[in-house]
């Protein structure tokens, strides 16, 4: 019998209590057991960044974590970025308005990575944005639209915060 543990993980503000195989990655746990398929798998060895989530507010590759390690922790995924069903986060709006995505497969990782980055760096330079997403691969866009979206989002967020 496969070794399992019961874990409780809070994802996008909702607590999930599940029994999970100890060898299941956090990414597979979210995608397959919880049906949260917004986070994607592109390489499963920690380079492409499509699986990036926020773990206790810090970006991390969910393919490089075991689900059991998330017990008692808080996770934010792409599904939790919009403030509500009817609204988008300024970062999401900026992606839409700046053609920051084409196929959308790398987008979950880009958004969570940039969410953390803009929270911690509200007024970044273009170079800083590029370095911030250096751990996220995109094959479609050449990154230009993504960088434009990040800078646009930074401005929108500064304005929203009265900056």
């Amino acid at each position, binding site marked *: 019998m496969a*070794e399992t543990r019961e874990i409780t993980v809070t994802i996008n503000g909702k607590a999930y209590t599940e029994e999970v195989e100890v*060898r299941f990655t956090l990414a597979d746990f979210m995608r397959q057991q919880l049906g949260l398929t917004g986070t994607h798998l592109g390489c499963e*060895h*920690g380079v492409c*960044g499509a699986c990036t989530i926020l773990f206790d507010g*810090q970006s991390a590759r969910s393919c490089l974590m075991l689900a059991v390690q998330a017990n008692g922790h808080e996770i934010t995924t792409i599904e939790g970025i919009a403030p509500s069903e009817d609204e988008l986060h300024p970062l999401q709006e900026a992606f839409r308005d700046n053609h920051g995505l084409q196929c959308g497969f790398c987008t979950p990782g880009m958004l969570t*990575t940039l969410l953390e980055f803009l929270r911690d760096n509200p007024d970044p330079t273009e170079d800083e944005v590029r370095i*911030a997403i250096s*751990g996220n691969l995109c094959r479609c866009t050449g990154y230009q639209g993504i960088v434009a979206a990040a800078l646009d989002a930074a401005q929108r967020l500064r304005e929203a915060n009265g900056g």
Partner: protein
Amino acid sequence: MKPPPFSYHDPDSVEAAVALIGSLENAKILAGGQSLMPMLNMRYVLPDHVIDLNRIDGLSYIREAGDTLEIGAMTRQRELEFSDVVRNRCPVVHEALLQVGHRQTRNRGTIGGSLSHLDPAAELPLICAAHDAVITVQGPKGERDIPFSEFPAGYMTPSIEMDELVTGVKLPLWPAGHGYGFEEFARRHGDFAMSSACALLETGGDGKITRASVTVGGVATAPVRMTEIEQGLVGGDGSEDRFRELCEACRSIDAIGDVYASAEYRQHLATVMSRRALVKAYARATGAA
């Protein structure tokens, strides 16, 4: 690419971890996961047991103890990167860390994990070598200290026993105002270095070098202290031509050659990285930076 089956253990103390490491056959230690998890996903390793250290309290700390910086093994690279103490007392660590992987990997990766994994191109072992750091390990018989020069036993193999765990690093600090420089050549931002160098310098009022530490990484199987260059530097001035001449010694490093970079290319890069690191360090030592 899914991990193979294993039994999972998450001890909550160093003693419990040590006991497990000592008693379990074919066990792997999970710290930051940035090295072990890819190997598990790709099934390059097939452990029967995974011992997760992330529940252990008290292994994550950055402490100034006089002229030594004490860092716990489970301290995340991120914490080192954002630590004021590190930035003030050991600024080359900060400079090096900005080249280590990416934000996501630094958020999870630990210094203990990096030291235990001992990748030839890893930046943190290089920094430890440069500072003559002391690695603390704990085993069933208790704690012992290993000077970094004795720490690498071979390619990606630290000289620790099967039942020992790296618990911390003690970094002797250089005096305030010392010159420091870290340089690395990698294909892309955050990639493992094909060659890296750390230079630490002290100078006298006349601009002559009084103390030097020059370490090269990514070239041999472990970081190499270039004592020949260090000896040549002491007593001399800080001209780039002088550095260039001395750094030619890097061409004699017993270098790794593989399909990505020949031994000769790595040796060549080492001459360049060490020289550039020295230029940076000297400018900072003399206040010209």
